[in-house]
């Protein structure tokens, strides 16, 4: 069985746990504790998760946001392989047909714990961590939950050094910022519940949550929703082939789990995500055939593009993907320049050999929990999709309900941290009253946020923000 694990890396050291064996459709798979089922399958060269209606299907997002990796684990259907830690003897099966949900099994439910807290924060990415830290440092009781078994959100897979000033962790690598923030949150007394899904909001300010060991009925005085975003899909023939995935998914595989997502990649989209992931693929020993970008200009910062060009990676502006082809998984992609109407000029199409097509074509805010709570949510293209109305202190249309980070509109990690800090301080002000120190710190964070929103990318974001101001 091939081994796609990365054993030496210029930036990362992968700490692998005990070796275990699990079973996928009857085949024994070797894995290491700390890996997810999806990562371990990819590490063994297995990319077909199921035979779907139009052929074999692989994994798209790798971070628990989509449903491409649903499998049956030890008889329990619809488990996300990308969130399920490997264990000795685990029996994992494909779901070619959709198995019915099991009947209610109330006698086997894990015990229920009632949680009463000042501030409940949903999502432990950069925004949620900063929100939790800010509220806890103001003296409040804070509970922070995340569905992953690690805190840090997508920071954990960011291996590049961040822009910014020292105060905003500039110069540190994303995964280092995640470690630092988690430590600070724990020191501030934040209770962090990992592998815990907030699955529903109920009248009376109750959020129901569940981990494999326990269920929680959580009540709060203020709640901050920092649930992040998911990667945008793109329509083209062959887009369901294994090997077509989000650029972030490839990043999760290689930087979080130390697994090469493939051998040769085509990246679609030259925004910051596409450019950064392309560079990180090179660091992981994956060839990058090209980055195609439908617009006439590179979308991301020039310095990220320059990093890539120096190692000979072509960035083809005014180009798009037409089709992905292959038997069982991606073997080649067809790309073409686009005309002024943005349609591909098929007479100029050419094929690129690759076993990976990584989509870096934008993100969509994950604001579903806010919708469920009844917050006013509107569609704002400039912010990536459905986002809640909010005031400048990040309070949504429901008093005491705040939004932070990408769930409120797609920006980047630094602004996520700042909106998190603002939301956390707002929650503290709601619970404790407008203490001058809290108000002063919130104004300071608002000033920094304003400064960070004066870049070449900000104009669009500011246009979007104007539409959701309340």
């Amino acid at each position: 069985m091939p081994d796609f694990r990365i054993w030496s890396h210029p930036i990362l050291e992968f700490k692998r746990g005990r070796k275990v064996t699990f079973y996928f459709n009857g085949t024994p798979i070797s894995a290491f504790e700390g890996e997810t089922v999806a990562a371990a399958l990819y590490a063994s060269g297995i990319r077909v998760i199921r035979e779907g209606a139009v052929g074999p299907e692989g994994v798209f997002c790798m971070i628990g946001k989509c449903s491409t990796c649903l499998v049956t684990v030890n008889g329990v259907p619809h488990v996300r392989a990308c969130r399920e830690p490997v264990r000795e003897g685990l029996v994992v099966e494909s779901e070619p047909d959709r198995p019915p949900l099991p009947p209610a099994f109330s006698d086997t439910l894990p015990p229920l714990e009632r949680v009463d807290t000042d501030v409940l924060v949903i999502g432990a990415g950069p925004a949620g961590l900063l929100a939790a830290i800010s509220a806890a440092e103001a003296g409040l009781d804070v509970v922070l939950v995340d569905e992953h078994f690690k805190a840090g959100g997508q920071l954990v897979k960011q291996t590049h050094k961040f822009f910014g000033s020292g105060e905003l962790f500039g110069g540190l690598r994303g995964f280092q910022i995640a470690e630092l923030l988690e430590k600070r949150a724990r020191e501030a007394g934040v209770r962090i519940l990992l592998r815990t899904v907030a699955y529903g909001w109920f009248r009376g300010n109750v959020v129901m949550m569940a981990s494999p060991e326990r269920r929680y009925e959580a009540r709060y005085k203020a709640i901050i929703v920092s649930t992040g975003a998911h990667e945008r899909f793109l329509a083209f023939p062959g887009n369901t082939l294994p090997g077509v995935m989000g650029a972030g998914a490839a990043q999760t595989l290689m930087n979080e789990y130390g697994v090469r997502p493939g051998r040769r990649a085509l990246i679609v989209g030259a925004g910051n995500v596409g450019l950064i992931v392309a560079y990180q693929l090179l660091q992981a020993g994956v060839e990058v055939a090209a980055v195609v970008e439908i617009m006439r200009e590179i979308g991301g910062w020039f310095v990220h593009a320059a990093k890539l060009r120096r190692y000979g990676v072509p960035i083809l502006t005014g180009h798009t993907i037409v089709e992905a082809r292959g038997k069982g998984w991606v073997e080649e992609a067809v790309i073409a320049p686009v005309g002024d109407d943005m349609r591909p000029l098929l007479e100029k199409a050419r094929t690129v050999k690759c076993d990976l097509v990584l989509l870096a074509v934008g993100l969509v805010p994950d604001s579903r929990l806010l919708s469920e709570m009844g917050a006013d949510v509107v569609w704002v293209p400039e912010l990536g999709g459905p986002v809640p109305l909010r005031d400048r202190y990040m309070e949504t249309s429901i008093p005491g309900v705040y939004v932070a980070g990408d769930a409120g509109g797609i920006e980047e990690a630094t602004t996520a941290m700042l909106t998190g800090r603002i939301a956390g301080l707002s929650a503290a002000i709601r619970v404790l009253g407008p203490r001058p120190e809290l108000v002063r710190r919130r104004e300071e964070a608002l000033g920094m946020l304003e400064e960070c929103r004066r870049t070449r990318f900000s104009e669009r974001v500011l246009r979007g923000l104007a539409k959701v101001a309340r």
Partner: protein
Amino acid sequence: MGFRRTGVIGVDELARRGLLPPPERLARGPAAVAECPEEIPCNVCESSCPSGAISVDGLRGMPKIDWDRCTGCGVCVGACPGLAIFVVDLSRDPALVTIPHEFLPRPEKGREVSLLSRDGRKVGRGRVVRVFEANKTLVVTVEVPRELAMEVRAIWVD
């Protein structure tokens, strides 16, 4: 602004933006060159510089290097999150260029490596004369033919 289409910036474009040291300064000894033509909200170079030679307008702006203060030490090369700062020394023959490097295998001192231009062409070979590490970024000084000192911006260990 061709560099936003190509990802490659020309020397003339850098000069127009005041990002290049004057030739007489380059002839005198090592000087930092920040190939950072956009106003990124970042001032890591400013706070990293031990000589106080770099200033960024607030959090946002292009780095402005005071080349009379710059000693060409290379600390900013390892600190810059955009891997966009280099040190060029034209006081010697061959010239020396200091480059950030984040790939395996690690280039060792004395080793010959390929010299790459801004668009990834192999334009020559040069010997590594110094390597130090700054939070996993290797800062590598390599000998470069004088006429290529403003071209070579990466190395590859092959």
